């Protein structure tokens, strides 16, 4: 083989893999309430009493089915956040995801686990862990977590 062998790279032509992920009965109820009534529901484990905000059929640590729904307030505490400021491909679109945005873990009042979502501001001097935030809903809602536009700080807190 010649020493100057050109080294080829094949670029993918078919990159898009479509999926239809079932949300599950519990998740579907959550999203339906979000879409139709702008309400956020959690689920309480009858054994450990924990209220999960991401709905689910079973409490992992207790391995107990969860049945009880708990309506939560659409506000809570920003437990932790991170301002995302680096470039990467968004696998949902195949394009670069717009940055910066603030990725946050929000503990809604009455919940024991957090919800991951975006916070409306990207100025680090105006963000702090522990601050109060509330959900802002989109006018047009389609039954996904994106029906919450973002979380924004509650004034003065």
């Amino acid at each position: 083989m010649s020493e100057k062998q050109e080294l080829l790279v094949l670029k993918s032509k078919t990159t898009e893999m479509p999926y239809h992920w079932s949300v599950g009965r519990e998740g579907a109820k959550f999203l339906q309430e979000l879409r139709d009534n702008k309400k956020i529901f959690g689920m309480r484990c009858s054994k450990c009493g924990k209220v999960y905000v991401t709905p689910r059929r079973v409490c992992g640590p207790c391995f107990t089915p969860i049945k009880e729904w708990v309506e939560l307030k659409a506000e809570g505490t920003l437990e932790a956040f991170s301002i995302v400021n680096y470039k990467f491909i968004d696998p949902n679109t195949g394009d670069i995801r717009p940055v910066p945005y603030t990725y946050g873990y929000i503990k809604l009042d009455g919940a024991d686990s957090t919800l991951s979502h975006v916070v409306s501001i990207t100025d680090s001097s105006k963000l702090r862990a522990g601050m109060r935030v509330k959900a802002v809903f989109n006018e047009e809602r389609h039954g996904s977590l994106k029906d919450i536009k973002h979380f924004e700080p509650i004034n003065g807190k």
Partner: protein
Amino acid sequence: MVQQAESYKVLSGRIKLPYQWTVGATGSKFFTELRDHKKIWGTKCPECKKVFVPPRKTCGTCFVDMGEWVELRPTGRLETFTVVHYHEPALHGMEPPFVYGIIKLDGADTGIAHYIGEVKDLESVKSGSRVEAVFREQREGSILDIKYFRLIG
């Protein structure tokens, strides 16, 4: 196709990532020869003497590197085939019915999977048929530089 359920029950989405697959030096030689000279090369194992087309760097059984290149004629034998009757535009641009075959080139010990083209009568395609490679006019350095194989004789 799956039934369309409401979005709150079934989330439709996708995974869309770009890939850049490294061909490696061995495959690159194969593809550049195909692209630049319309030639098909294989590699020969120094131990078992098998000729691999498409070429491999290492014989997977003897586990030794195969330095020796062997040029092959673009003719061979159709080992097996299938007539495909469904359309899958995400995977290829072929209109059904079309034919896939595994072709063992003269002098090679392994087969190549490819299209069997210029088929006027599907009944004429038989295992054991003689075939030859038809090259694309515009070649870019991929297995598709061979447009298809066609029946001869």
